[in-house]
């Protein structure tokens, strides 16, 4: 027990470090008294400060100070009561368990279980395509006691119900950013409002402001080529061969043989000068062509390959066109929470 008190005494003043010094002089004196471990004086000065004009954070600070002092002087009911007031004034208030003694944390948690507040309303930053399944911006908050919780998004006259359920503890929701008819919400400033209705008349609400931007969804560019595939040349140059000379020889032989066979014997034997000149001309033609680079010829396999490639490309582009038509109907929503400035 003795060690626990020593530990408590060591931890409590540390708990107050790091907080902004209040403007109210009485409250500052109360904090000073707490750091000096003069708990009766803390109670007196804190109560005195609460009677003065304080801002909401200062008021919450004074109640918390009272809770600490009552805890230190072994007055749990008063401590819990003071903590309840502090929590109602500042629902997001938390104690650091590394700096605050377990006893005070226990009283603080007991206070939390006795008031209905919505704490730690967080809205993530998100960018998503409106109206697609599973997309939305995450909303998370904690309700301290069982309550019917209604979560809404509000902008001007527009109020959209996001969720309504009975909750105790932490709840994770997703807002799809769509109107009831499926259209995307209007861009601008929106409030995510969480209202909790507990037993009896108790209720509490908390909100988080977000900025919603609406933009077009990026479309996919058409393909000019299939990645990894290139068209092949549709003509190929065959290897050089003696074929042209062979053909010329064949034709010359046929003509010569024909002329010889059809020669009329009554008119004597033909001199062969004319067919000789003709044969020489044809054979020179064949010879020159044999030496010359052959003419390109269609590469049927490559033509077929290119045709299939073009068909595949056309099919892919048709799919992209269809996809783009769908994308153009969609809207990209960007949600950014607006940071609350401490007053």
């Amino acid at each position: 027990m003795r060690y626990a008190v020593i530990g408590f005494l060591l931890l409590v003043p540390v708990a107050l470090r790091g907080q902004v010094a209040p403007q109210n002089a009485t409250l500052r004196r109360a904090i000073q008294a707490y750091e000096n471990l003069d708990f009766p004086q803390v109670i007196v000065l804190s109560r005195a400060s609460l009677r003065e004009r304080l801002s909401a954070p200062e008021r919450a600070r004074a109640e918390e100070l009272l809770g600490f002092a009552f805890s230190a002087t072994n007055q749990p009911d008063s401590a819990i009561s003071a903590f309840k007031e502090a929590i109602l004034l500042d629902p997001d208030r938390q104690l650091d368990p590394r700096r605050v003694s377990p006893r005070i944390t226990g009283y603080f948690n007991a206070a939390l279980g006795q008031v209905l507040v919505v704490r730690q309303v967080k809205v993530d930053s998100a960018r998503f395509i409106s109206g697609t399944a599973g997309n939305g911006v995450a909303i998370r908050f904690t309700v301290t006691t069982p309550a019917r919780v209604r979560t809404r998004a509000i902008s001007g006259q527009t109020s959209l119900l996001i969720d309504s359920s009975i909750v105790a503890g932490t709840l994770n929701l997703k807002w799809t950013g769509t109107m009831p008819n499926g259209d995307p919400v209007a861009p601008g400033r929106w409030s995510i409002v969480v209202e909790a209705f507990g037993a009896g008349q108790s209720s509490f609400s908390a909100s988080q402001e977000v900025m919603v931007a609406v933009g077009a969804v990026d479309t996919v560019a058409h393909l000019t080529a299939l990645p990894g595939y290139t068209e092949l040349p549709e003509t190929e140059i065959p290897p050089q061969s003696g074929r042209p000379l062979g053909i010329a020889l064949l034709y010359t032989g046929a003509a010569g043989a024909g002329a010889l066979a059809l020669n009329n014997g009554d008119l004597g034997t033909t001199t062969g000068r004319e067919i000789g000149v003709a044969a020489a001309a044809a054979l020179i033609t064949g010879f020159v062509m044999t030496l010359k680079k052959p003419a390109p010829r269609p590469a049927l396999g490559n033509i077929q390959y290119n045709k299939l490639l073009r068909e595949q490309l056309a099919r892919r582009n048709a799919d992209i066109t269809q996809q783009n038509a769908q994308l153009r109907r969609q809207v990209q929503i960007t949600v950014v929470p607006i940071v609350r400035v401490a007053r």
Partner: protein
Amino acid sequence: MKRASVIAGVLALLASVPSAAQTVSIGLQGALGDYREVSSNLKYRGVGGGATLWVHYNRFSVEGSASRISYDPRDQNAGLTSFKATELDARLGVDLAAGFTAEVGAMKRTVDPELSAQEMGAGRIGVRYSKLIGPGATVGLRGNYLVGAKFTGEGTAGLAFELGLLASIGAPNGRYRFTMDYGFQRVDRKVSGSSVPIEQSLVKVGVAVGF
């Protein structure tokens, strides 16, 4: 002469209507000829020149050529006289398949001075097969049957035909080419049951310019 003018006019008209599928080429040739008639004693050898106009339009082609050969008798002591032969040829071709062309046309050969050799005219029907053996180079064979042959003297020709060998080489686009056109003509002319045959070998080598 009148007929030649008509053929030239038709060719000129075809050439004057350019089209994407139309090619026109004009060629000039030097010619060598061998002409025989009646028996082995009447043999002539000649040198001359010629010109050809060739129009190809889609599947159709028209070819008109004129040549003039100065023939001299092979046997200078046989008492034969030299003569000049002017030959006009016209052919209308229809491409039937790759390289395979059906041809109809007419030919007329006149001689100067008159009666120094047989003048003749005939229609022709036949085929031509050309084979592309490389970029801008072709060789081909031609076979025509000469129908309704007429002569200055009397007579008929039951068997009259010509066999040809063709070759050309030049730019792949047909802008210019060297040409060779060989024709062997055999006409088995008969007059009153007697055989008075005619035979001619004519080779023309030259250049052609395409448009």
